[in-house]
């Protein structure tokens, strides 16, 4: 099975400051990696994903994440945050192939990091 650790449950930052939300994972098989965002009173939205290819992936709203296989990490970064980025962010992994003991596409989530951006 896979597991995800998000070390920071809360990250407060001021507007226009850089931010990094940390994510580490554990898996005995190859994985795909995801960041989901949940705005207040809304459902989960896919922010970005790593499936293959370039280890640096970007979202349309300025976030980026880098897959580091040796460190089993997939940290999320943004060089300058906005108040509208205030939300809970979830890192997730899934096995890259289904099979015995593995549900294809099943997501294993971290506990989430609440990002609060202050003016």
């Amino acid at each position: 099975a896979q597991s995800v650790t998000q070390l920071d449950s809360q990250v407060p930052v001021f507007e226009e400051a850089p931010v990094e939300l940390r994510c580490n994972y554990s898996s005995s098989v190859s994985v795909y990696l995801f960041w989901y965002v949940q705005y207040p009173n809304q459902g989960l939205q896919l922010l970005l994903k790593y499936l293959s290819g370039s280890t640096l992936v970007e979202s349309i709203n300025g976030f980026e994440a880098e897959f580091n296989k040796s460190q089993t990490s997939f940290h999320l970064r943004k060089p300058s945050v906005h108040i509208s980025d205030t939300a809970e962010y979830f890192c997730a992994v899934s096995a890259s192939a289904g099979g015995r003991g593995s549900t294809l596409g099943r997501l294993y989530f971290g506990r989430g990091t609440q990002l609060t951006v202050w003016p």
Partner: protein
Amino acid sequence: GAGVSQSPSNKVTEKGKDVELRCDPISGHTALYWYRQSLGQGLEFLIYFQGNSAPDKSGLPSDRFSAERTGGSVSTLTIQRTQQEDSAVYLCASSLGGTSVYEQYFGPGTRLTVT
């Protein structure tokens, strides 16, 4: 187009009652997942449907939980004899399946409160 929809958005029930939660996936999506989001446990996988294959029920926490998917589309999650620890937000997600199974689209969730 329309996203994943879930109903009801909120449900308050008394301990011991049965509840049914409904999920309408995106049209054409063959894969459907149920997850549960609670304060103590975070986001947990419950069950997975893929096409006409037997569902993967490995995440269901007890035999009080069951789910079905009719006609490869709408899914219903049923919780029998609800307990207070069942209080959570129940999330449904769907995806195209095949090589796109990993791109899951989530519904807004059903907030279940067991009193």
